[in-house]
């Protein structure tokens, strides 16, 4: 093995920060809280950079063994960390974006109560996310997986006094639970059949198995169950419903957790388990279908949302769908590439949106924005970079990664490509819609209904103003990354190839056969055209003729209503799952089982005890002499027995 990179230090650093701030932060000044939190995440990033200087593909993967954890018979799980090219990319993204969002949060959260709590949670999230990424076995990954869920729950419910925030936190947690259930069963299957959760051992065992072409075999089951977990964490159909609600949390949290890092954990997990998926084509197909459908579905919802954060949330779901689509056609490196660029531009978009919200004093409704370009130029220009990046305008980051995915999807099936293309158009449309509504036209902030959002900062509704430098600088850095991040595309694929090509090379070979260089350029052109079309229609509807959207909406009638109400999915789930569950729990579990069976049996036991005691309690007369009488009689009995035994 190679030299020791002390990988365990990276997650531990944020944990220390979280512990210090969480335990003692209440008495600290804000400056000290910030110092500790930044020191923790900054040190983690510095460590990641140091590792980057040491890293060489030749000697990957690096392994750091920390301590034994579970030893049960032949089964063994350790605290050990693992660094290959895939986790290296994730490590840099998580620590880098995480550090930027830490810095940004200083400005954004400065006036909030529970300041120390926020940074403690952020550091805690960093710890779990890094554990997830660096784990060497599925169980440790699961710890991180659950831990980021916990941090997400805590941060969504950061303003826990607000009922909607608390509910959103619970919703996120419970929905994730469903996915985690699938993940856990997958882990059990792994233990049962391979006797280990260690990546190396599992993948070694899996790679010896044949490809499951027909039916649902072991690997297909594991793959599908893993996908259930990924769908929960990465907000895919049908478990995406928690992510829009998660926007109740502070916006930097949305940027960090619900856009850049945590929600991509599912993608990472699928990519990490690619050895399994490669041998389970049906599972892979399911992944692709889910990803494709989610991408289209979320994008359609996104075009009708008026809340700036909700638009971005559905956009995130949609983009995640792209990543799964990529994974589904075995283009893992394309998925990871998009993951990385998405982390840059979606983080940027969320932070910029936060800056906008900050600027207009807490309002999130785009209908009451507009004309902000001249008030907040830094935000405008950075957000422009993000918007163009996500819309797929070359030469920004999003174009490269998205085009890569569409190209690989085309290799899988033209249906994927077509739907991806439609989604790309919709993405471009709703993003430019957001852009136009927010920054162009007249400022309509004064017409806003005077609701005071809890995400406000006590500024009141004055003239919009630019954010402080501490918030602008991370925006600028992310904007720069969004601009340039796509240029490494080819090199990233090459860099990741040791991870993904050690298995079967069929998929990429297939693409190579079916598509030529010309097709690739044609498809690229179509992509660009579609993106520009989206820009033009948005320009038409929201810049030139602002009255048109309402008429179109009226024309579409029921369909528009369905889109605005997110296809009634929440209501559907409520009717399909929640209501039967609640009713069933009430009628069967509560009234029948708990009250009828358990309570009654307990009560009956108590009652029978009481009746029996009632019969004999008269012995307890309180009269000492009676007690003495019993003692004397008992002594006589004992003596008689002993004598009798002796005589016999």
């Amino acid at each position, binding site marked *: 093995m190679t030299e020791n990179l002390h990988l365990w230090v990276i997650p531990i650093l944020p944990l220390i920060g979280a512990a210090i701030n969480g335990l003692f932060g209440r008495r600290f000044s804000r400056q000290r809280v910030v110092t500790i939190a930044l020191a923790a995440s900054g040190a983690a990033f510095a460590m990641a950079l140091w590792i980057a200087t040491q890293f060489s593909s030749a000697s990957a993967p690096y392994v750091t063994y920390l301590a034994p954890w579970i030893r049960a018979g032949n089964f063994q799980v350790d605290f050990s960390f693992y660094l290959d090219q895939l986790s290296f990319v994730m490590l840099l993204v998580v620590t880098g974006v995480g550090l930027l969002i830490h810095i940004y949060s200083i400005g954004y959260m400065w006036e909030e109560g529970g300041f120390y709590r926020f940074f403690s949670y952020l550091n805690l999230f960093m710890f779990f996310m890094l554990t997830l990424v660096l784990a060497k076995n599925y169980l440790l990954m699961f710890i991180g997986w659950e831990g980021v869920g916990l941090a997400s729950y805590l941060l969504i419910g950061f303003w826990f006094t607000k009922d909607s925030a608390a509910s959103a936190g619970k919703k996120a947690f419970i929905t994730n639970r469903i996915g985690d259930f699938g993940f856990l069963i997958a882990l059990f299957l792994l233990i049962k059949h391979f006797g280990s959760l260690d990546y190396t051992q599992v993948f070694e065992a899996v790679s010896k198995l044949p490809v499951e072409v027909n039916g649902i075999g072991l690997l297909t089951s594991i793959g599908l169950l893993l996908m259930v977990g990924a769908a929960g964490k990465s907000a895919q159909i049908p478990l995406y419903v928690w992510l829009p609600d998660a926007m109740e949390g502070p916006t930097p949290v949305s940027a960090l957790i619900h856009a850049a890092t945590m929600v991509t954990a599912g993608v990472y997990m699928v990519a990490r388990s690619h050895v399994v998926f490669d041998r389970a084509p049906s599972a892979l197909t399911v992944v692709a279908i889910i990803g494709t459908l989610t991408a289209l579905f979320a994008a359609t919802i996104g075009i009708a949302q008026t809340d700036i954060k909700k638009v971005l949330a559905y956009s995130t779901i949609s983009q995640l769908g792209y990543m799964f689509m990529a994974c589904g056609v075995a283009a893992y490196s394309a998925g990871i590439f998009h993951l990385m660029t998405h982390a840059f531009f979606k983080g940027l978009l969320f932070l910029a949106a936060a800056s906008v919200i900050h600027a207009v004093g807490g309002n999130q409704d785009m209908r009451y924005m507009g004309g902000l370009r001249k008030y907040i130029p830094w935000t405008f220009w950075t957000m422009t970079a993000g918007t163009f990046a996500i819309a797929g305008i070359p030469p920004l980051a999003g174009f490269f990664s998205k085009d890569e995915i569409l190209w690989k999807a085309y290799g899988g099936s033209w249906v994927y490509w077509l739907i991806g293309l439609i989604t790309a158009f919709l993405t471009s449309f709703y993003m430019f819609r957001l852009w136009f509504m927010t920054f162009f036209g007249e400022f309509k902030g004064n017409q806003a209904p005077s609701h005071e959002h809890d995400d406000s900062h006590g500024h009141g509704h004055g003239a919009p103003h630019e954010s402080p430098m501490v918030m602008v600088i991370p925006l600028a850095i992310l904007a720069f990354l969004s601009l340039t991040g796509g240029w490494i595309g080819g090199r990233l694929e090459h860099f990741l190839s040791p991870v993904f090509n050690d298995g079967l090379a069929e998929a990429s070979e297939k693409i190579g056969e079916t598509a030529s260089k010309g097709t690739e350029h044609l498809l690229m052109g179509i992509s660009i055209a579609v993106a520009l079309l989206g820009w033009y229609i948005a320009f038409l509807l929201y810049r030139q003729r602002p009255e048109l959207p309402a008429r179109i909406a009226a024309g579409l009638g029921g369909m528009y209503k369905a889109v605005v109400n997110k296809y009634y999915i929440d209501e559907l789930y409520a009717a399909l799952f929640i209501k039967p569950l609640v009713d069933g729990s009430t009628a069967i579990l509560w009234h029948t089982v708990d009250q009828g069976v358990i309570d009654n049996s307990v009560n009956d036991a108590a009652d029978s005890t009481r009746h029996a005691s009632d019969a004999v309690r008269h012995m307890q007369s309180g009269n000492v002499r009676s007690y003495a*009488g*019993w003692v*004397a009689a008992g002594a006589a009995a004992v003596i*008689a027995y002993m004598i009798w035994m002796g005589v016999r």
Partner: protein
Amino acid sequence: MDLHLALFLIFGAVCVAGAINLLVQRHPINSALSLITVMASLAVEYLLLGAEFVAAVQVIIYAGAIMVLFVFVIMLLNAGEEARTGGSRIALVIGVPGMIVGSTIVAWVLLKRSGTGDVAIGSLPGDPKTIGWLLFHDFLLPFEVTSVLILIAIMGAVVLASRPELSSHLEKER
């Protein structure tokens, strides 16, 4: 009839008479005096068995200290004659027959079935020196443990019998 048996019977009779008198007398002070009689006669029985030190300690500790405490408490509380309340039927219905049955069995076993021999007068001289030697060598640990027991009993008695408000009043006066 030899002297030993005669003395045994005389003082045994005194013992039993005292014990029965303890039960018959209704006033606790009479019962206490009966008990003192029993103890004094028992001391003589001990002397007959040669346990002279035990006899002396019996008189000094039991008759001279413990029973003085009883008499003292009877006087302090000015205990009157015992009321014949019928508080416990069980004691009479179950306890007394049980006691009688138990003692009858034991007595029968002792008299009929025991192969124990005779005891000569003063056959085992328990002089203070030997007893002290045993007590401070073979029985040192139990001895020390009982000293702790006594200490605890003293403290317990003080705590139980003291009236807090009264003692604090006295403290203030001082």
